[in-house]
């Protein structure tokens, strides 16, 4: 007991503030969000909110647009997570090769989309994929490299609009994956490689037996972040397609946001949020249990 107290006293200066802020700004809102989902919530006068039990949930399950948003959300994850990860890892491995020159330059350029504002990038792609022949992508694909017979109305059709959203999301995410892997690759002590080369290991074998196992915690970290990030995706749909045409490109997040801040239906929006949260929880549950336990001892 006294030992426990002594340990708490020691750790308190480093730990207290972080835990406190997390409790106030993350944990409490989480609980409150669930609470709101059981009410017909009155934004201006919360005390007048009506308890409606599971009504909001029942309504969401019968809302065909929720189903479409769910489909889009799942597809978005299935396309953009592997897309970003694969391309990012390939770029990182290439840039990290000892024989590659201008490493800093490559890293800088590939990281540019990541540090660019989502808002700027969303509008940029919206204009690049604009309908008319003066849209840059149409120009490239019709005039320059004639792959398409005629200009495409990218944002007027469900699947081409979704495609634009996927393209911008992958384009913007590659550099992040790259920089995470580069940071991890560079933190691997050189002595390990030296030892391996003394033992006679070369290129590919060093990569498989030293680099890859050491990257495993980073891979877990990156993939989980990408998955959660894909469920967080919001601005690109909000600004590029605005959910259209005919609400067919909404993600759960944009659909939820619309109900919250356009219709001020906080209860219903929170119910959609909670279901989304549950879905992510189930999807990442197996990872959560092992997450943080993967430790590499050098």
């Amino acid at each position: 007991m006294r030992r426990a107290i002594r340990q708490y006293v020691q750790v308190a200066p480093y730990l207290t503030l972080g835990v406190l802020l997390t409790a106030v700004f993350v944990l409490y809102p989480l609980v409150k969000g669930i609470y709101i989902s059981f009410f017909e919530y009155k934004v201006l006068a919360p005390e007048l909110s009506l308890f409606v039990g599971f009504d909001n949930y029942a309504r969401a399950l019968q809302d065909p647009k929720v189903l479409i948003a769910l489909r889009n959300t799942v597809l978005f994850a299935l396309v953009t997570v592997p897309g970003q990860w694969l391309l990012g890892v390939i770029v990182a491995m290439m840039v990290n090769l000892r024989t590659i020159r201008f490493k800093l330059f490559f890293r800088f350029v590939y990281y540019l989309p990541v540090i660019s504002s989502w808002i700027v990038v969303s509008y940029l792609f919206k204009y690049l994929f604009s309908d008319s022949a003066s849209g840059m992508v149409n120009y490239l694909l019709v005039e320059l490299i004639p792959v398409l017979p005629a200009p495409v109305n990218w944002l007027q059709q469900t699947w081409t609009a979704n495609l634009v959203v996927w393209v911008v999301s992958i384009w913007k995410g590659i550099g992040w994956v790259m920089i995470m892997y580069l940071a991890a690759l560079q933190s691997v002590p050189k002595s390990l490689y030296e030892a391996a080369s003394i033992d006679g290991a070369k290129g590919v074998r060093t990569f498989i037996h030293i680099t890859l196992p050491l990257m495993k915690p980073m891979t877990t970290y990156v993939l989980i972040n990408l998955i959660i990030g894909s469920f967080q995706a919001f601005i690109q749909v909000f600004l590029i397609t605005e959910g259209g045409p005919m609400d067919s490109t909404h993600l759960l997040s944009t659909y939820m946001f619309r109900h919250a801040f356009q219709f001020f239906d906080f209860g219903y929006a929170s119910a959609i949020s909670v279901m989304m949260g549950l879905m992510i929880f189930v999807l990442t549950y197996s990872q959560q249990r092992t997450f943080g336990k993967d430790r590499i001892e050098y």
Partner: protein
Amino acid sequence: MAKWSTGIVHALLVLGIFVVIGPFIYMVMTSLTTDNFSLPSPTKLLHADKTLVNYSDAWSKNNFSRYFLNSMFVSSVTMVLSLSLAASTAYAFARFQFPGKEFLFKLFLFTMFVPAILNIIPQFTVIQAVNLVDTYPGLILLYIGSGVVGSTFFLRGFFERIPIELEESIVIDGGSRWTMFYTIYIPLSLPAIGTLGIFAFSGTWDEFIVALTIIKTEINRTLPIALQLFRGQYATYYGLFFAASIIALLPILIIFTVFQRQFVNPNVTEGGVKG
């Protein structure tokens, strides 16, 4: 053979650069042309006269310079405070033993699985309850509070990799935990801290939804919302909009270039432990 494959990798990397940078070139070209009431055609972009007038116009319109400084302030403060907080919290989880640590860490991890946007409504009610709506302290607190877990987890990984033997020298000299923290863990994790600093700054600089919810007074708004204004009022002036966008991107570019040096030789643990 090795030269040959190196050549291919170089070629692939250069090819990728065109895909990555193409949209930016388009943006820069458009920002240099005027009279764009509709999207300029590719031929116009190539042949029209280039001018910087959109940049000076953008800077002086719509209180843009003021919003720029607002964002600079909010992002700098958020970055510094987040980094300090993340470093100390990560240190607590990496190198201290205390009852309930495992549970607390699991709880922290759990929150990482909750998309931030789901929390925006209740977070607003918290800020409202402490009377910080429409203030920078409220905005910054919310940024820091919702970012602690992610950055703590990130830094903890790096702290744990630092050989614990390094602490021995401090112990022998009679140093405290605090001495270990700032003479071993911080200096040896600078690449990681630099990376995190970039995330914190650019994440805040770019943040849109929370700023829109918390800040009500127009003059206190941050840059992302100002860009929205540009589009609203000058929807047809693509050159002006892109000029404003590029100005908004610049600070991040500069910060990234500065921090980039931190990444250059991050093998700081190398040779730290002999034998």
